């Protein structure tokens, strides 16, 4: 791996990773007196799959929420695309090209799969209201273009058969996939996945892993993900941040992390002093 932060590197399987897309600098997040994250810094480079792992309560989800703007850290800076990001609302972050999924699935249950995925395109619609209402002019062209993207995503994630089904009727594994589809439809620069495989069986996990790899490969999307399943994480990711009790205890390739004594201790359990 290169020493220069802004330069990319070449992965073990020969993929070229670009410069720094996002950088977290000395982030500290408190809830009242409780420190959820303490002074953590790491970066995400363009085109890579970056994992954040750690035992329960390590602050992984909080970290993801800081990136997506749902939490505002008390200290530290968030740098995105080479500029410092001011304090932002979650919807503003989304408009900057950061899409996410949730640990507990946040879908529009009353809408169909297709409508759900279409909401991912909301920020790509520019035609005015009257044009949209009567489906003429810019709106028509736009809708066609947006539908093309959506159909491609639906195709890609193999959910054609359920496109007209209301989301509330779908089983858990498929809901997770629809949520991924909605995030992908936004054509994000950075895709955040909060435990994309939580609660899935082995087969579903394999499917999801394949999709994540394919998304990265096909669209070149930068992905940051949180996952519990160590095996999955090590297979998927290019670089891994390890957190424990709100602190960063390891950062590097899966192999480096696997041999890090602090990481081994955190997972196997030694007394904290």
């Amino acid at each position: 791996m290169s020493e220069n932060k802004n330069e990319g590197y070449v992965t073990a399987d020969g993929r070229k990773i670009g410069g720094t897309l996002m950088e977290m600098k000395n982030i500290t997040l408190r809830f009242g007196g409780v420190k959820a994250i303490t002074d953590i810094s790491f970066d995400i480079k363009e085109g890579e799959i970056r994992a954040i792992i750690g035992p329960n309560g390590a602050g992984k989800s909080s970290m993801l929420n800081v990136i997506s703007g749902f939490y505002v850290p008390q200290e530290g800076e968030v740098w995105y695309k080479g500029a410092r990001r001011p304090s932002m609302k979650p919807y503003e972050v989304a408009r900057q090209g950061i899409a996410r999924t949730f640990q507990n699935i946040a879908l529009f249950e009353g809408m169909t799969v297709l409508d759900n995925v279409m909401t991912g395109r909301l920020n790509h619609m520019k035609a005015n209201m009257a044009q949209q209402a009567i489906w003429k002019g810019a709106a028509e062209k736009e809708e066609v273009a947006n539908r093309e993207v959506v159909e491609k995503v639906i195709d890609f994630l193999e959910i054609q058969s359920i496109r007209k089904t209301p989301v509330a009727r779908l089983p858990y594994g498929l809901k997770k996939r629809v949520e991924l589809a909605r995030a992908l439809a936004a054509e994000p620069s950075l895709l955040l996945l909060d435990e994309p495989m939580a609660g899935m069986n082995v087969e579903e996990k394999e499917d999801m892993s394949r999709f994540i790899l394919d998304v990265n490969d096909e669209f070149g999307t930068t992905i940051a993900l949180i996952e519990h399943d160590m095996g999955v994480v090590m297979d998927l990711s290019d670089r891994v941040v390890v957190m424990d009790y709100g602190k960063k205890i390891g950062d590097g390739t899966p192999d480096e992390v696997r041999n890090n004594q602090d990481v081994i201790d955190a997972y196997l359990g030694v007394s904290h002093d």
Partner: protein
Amino acid sequence: MPDQLLFGTEVFLNGLMAGVLYALVALGFVLIYKASGIFNYAQGVMALFAALTLVGIMDGQVPFAHLINAVFGTEVHHFGWNIPSFLAIILTMGVMVALAWIVQQLIFRHLVNQEPIILFMATIGLAYFMEGFGDIMWGSDIKKLDVGIPQGMNALIDEVTYGAFGYGFFIDNLDIVAAVIATILVILLVLFSQYTKQGRAMRAVADDHQAALSVGISLNFIWVMVWSVAGFVALVAGIMWGAKSGVQFSLSLIALKALPVLMLGGFTSIPGAIVGGLIIGVGEKMFEFLIGPMVGGATENWFAYVLALLFLVFRPQGLFGEKIIERV
């Protein structure tokens, strides 16, 4: 055709027309409920407030005239101009949008993620506040609202039916206009919520706040928009009811008539509000016509509520409401 049947048909048609007006009020409720999960108790008062503002603007009334006169000992009441009704309607719409923004900034922005019952209580407070505020602003006397909608019997229908059946139907012009406007309004609303970006965002917000934020929707903007649309519907309802029975306090009570309509149609369905309104309108007129004489009349006062009660027992989600699907 026998006389009774002809008379019955006329009652039926008048019921339909009354139903349209009920549906108009119910629509305002459905819109806000669908988009924010808030049952807006203040919808009726909003209609009253819109009508008061419209009359005030048209007549060039000085807002807060009584207050100003009491405090400063002046004698101002009117600016001395009259504003054409079309312009006044647009100005009133501006006031309703401003009201929507204020309501969002002062009340509902601070109540995000609260229980529905708390939001409901807030709208009760809002209703009482606006009732008083409307009085202070425009005075509490009964006002006549004339925006140029024709009133009285429609001569053409009377003539045609007289020629055909030897019995002229009495249909009020105002009711016909109301029906046409309501139809246009509903078409606009459906186009808006189903086909525009803002409409899709509105449905998304109603469904899940977190997910809406994550796809880049501003909750604040959508809510101001929803309250503005509800304000617009309130204005239309206020104009129709105000033209029919004068602008006065009792206008806000039409909200009570909207409740059974909502229970029939379902709180989440725009077509439901329409069909519910028509059923209540026709139902109460026909019931009065057919059963009324046997029980001593005055059934119109309770028919709608009894029907709503039956629906609550046997089909709580209404005719068109979303059936609650829950996976366990």
